[in-house]
């Protein structure tokens, strides 16, 4: 599949943004938010800004962005529509949570209630984003049980990194419950493990369709190969569904993504937690940026490596 920049930015940024909002929601429900107005504005603001930036990036993928409001209407059947509805509802709850936290402090029922809404809404949004891809039978690399766990784990990891980086800068990380830092470490490791499992599973999945099945010759022909294409130059369909450029570099890019996660993010995190202060904040920011960069690479591969069934009509023997 063609790795469109708008969609890679959308899924990466909104994943981190809603992941961060989920962690803030969890802290709000458990009464663990630090009692500091500046922290409230910065943590809530950065998280919401990431989510909104991602959603705005997604509109650049539309040929008619002025009609984007119509995408809220088909939540009964479409995961893309559900994603839109959940994201706007979650942003509403997050705004209420942040405003109440900044103005009345964290220990109020409004913060807890809005936090619960933010937590559940953010989870629903990330699951909906993943389900957009997971529900497409035509793309086997997405149509499997790993897509949703990977999106959730990557959102949880990048979201936790963002929240901890903001709290480190305002000097409130040490005052928040220790389970936040532990949860961040667990989320980063979980993201690395689930993605490795997904890559491993993708390499072992047997293709369900072949060219004979695509042209209705199952049992009638032993082999079917393209002789002449219907057109003399590439069509939109091939550009969109038969992207091949990146596959040559796939193995290298997988190592880049894994290295960013393992060799940069994890050591930086551990050092940041140990050092604290300004150095800790800098290291934590480095870890957050490294995590986002790793997810950008991962998301690019998610699209570039995915094979669409329609390639069976253009030379692929099995998909």
């Amino acid at each position: 599949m063609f790795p469109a920049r708008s969609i890679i930015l959308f899924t990466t940024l909104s994943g981190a943004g809603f992941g961060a909002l989920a962690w803030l929601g969890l802290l709000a429900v458990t009464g663990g938010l630090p009692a500091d107005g500046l922290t409230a504005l910065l943590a809530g603001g950065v998280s919401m800004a990431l989510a909104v930036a991602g959603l705005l990036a997604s509109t650049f993928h539309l040929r008619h962005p002025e009609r984007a409001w119509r995408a809220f209407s088909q939540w009964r059947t479409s995961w893309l529509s559900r994603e839109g509805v959940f994201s706007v509802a979650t942003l509403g709850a997050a705004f209420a949570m942040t405003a109440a936290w900044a103005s009345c402090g964290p220990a109020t029922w409004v913060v807890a209630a809005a936090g619960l809404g933010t937590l559940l809404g953010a989870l629903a949004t990330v699951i909906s984003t993943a389900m957009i891809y997971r529900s497409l039978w035509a793309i086997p690399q997405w149509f499997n049980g790993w897509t949703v766990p990977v999106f959730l784990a990557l959102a949880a990891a990048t979201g936790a990194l963002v929240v901890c980086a903001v709290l480190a800068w305002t000097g409130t990380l040490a005052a928040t419950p220790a389970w936040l830092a532990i949860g961040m470490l667990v989320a980063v490791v979980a993201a690395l493990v689930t993605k490795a499992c997904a890559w491993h599973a993708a390499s072992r999945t047997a293709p369900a369709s072949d060219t004979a099945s695509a042209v209705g010759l199952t049992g009638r022909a032993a082999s079917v190969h393209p002789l002449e294409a219907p057109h003399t130059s590439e069509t939109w369909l091939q550009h969109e569904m038969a992207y091949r450029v990146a596959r040559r570099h796939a193995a290298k890019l997988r190592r880049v993504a894994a290295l960013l996660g393992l060799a940069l993010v994890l050591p930086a995190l551990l050092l940041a937690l140990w050092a604290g202060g300004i150095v800790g904040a800098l290291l934590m920011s480095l870890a957050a940026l490294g995590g986002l960069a790793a997810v950008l690479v991962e998301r690019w591969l998610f699209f570039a490596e995915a094979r669409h069934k329609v390639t069976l009509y253009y030379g692929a023997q099995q998909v």
Partner: protein
Amino acid sequence: MTALPATTAKKLGLVIDLDSCVGCHACAVACKQWNDTGALAPLSDENPYGAEASGTWLNRVHSFEARDDQGGFALHFPRSCLHCENAPCVTVCPTGASYKRAADGIVLVDEDLCIGCGLCAWACPYGAREMDESQGVMKKCTLCADRIDNQHLLPQDREPACVRTCPTGARHFGDLGDPASEISQLVAARGGVALMPESGCAPTNRYLPPRERRSHASPLPPKAAQPSQPDAPDGFLGWLDRVLSA
């Protein structure tokens, strides 16, 4: 709404005979012509006179080389929307632009509602939908709804342009939901198949596989056994026969 109708009164669709199709692309050209000039907006072309001409087509004719135990054979394969019963392109649509008509099962796009996100084209395993790059909306086979619904056309013209134009009679149109209909009977007689049945999309269109070749039923006699001299014809043919046998 992008919810699929539970059942449709009719299941209008195409039956394509892969035995008769000669790969002439007349159906694709007729489709392009009708949908370029009909009730819907034109199907745009990009760079139509340049080196990399490209454009939106609702019907594409592929040619394959297939092999079985008797050797190879050419397979000409027109590919267009199959008007699936469980059309995933319809349910993924976030705006309600894609829909399946409850009356006859035709899958259509309301171009005024389409935001051009392209998700429906991703959802279709058959590559039936193409983005119109100049209008920014999704295009697909309408089964020439604007012909079959049009009471002003002569009755014989109220069928899809591709069917009307096919010079070998390889394309058939009708109600595949009615087992008594002519095309349902054709499908039954010829063992018509759905493409990629494992998709779960339940396509309406059927493809008739090529007939078993006759070559093995009456094989040519081996070359050495052919008599050359005893009953050779006279005159020019006899001379030709002698020259070629020398």
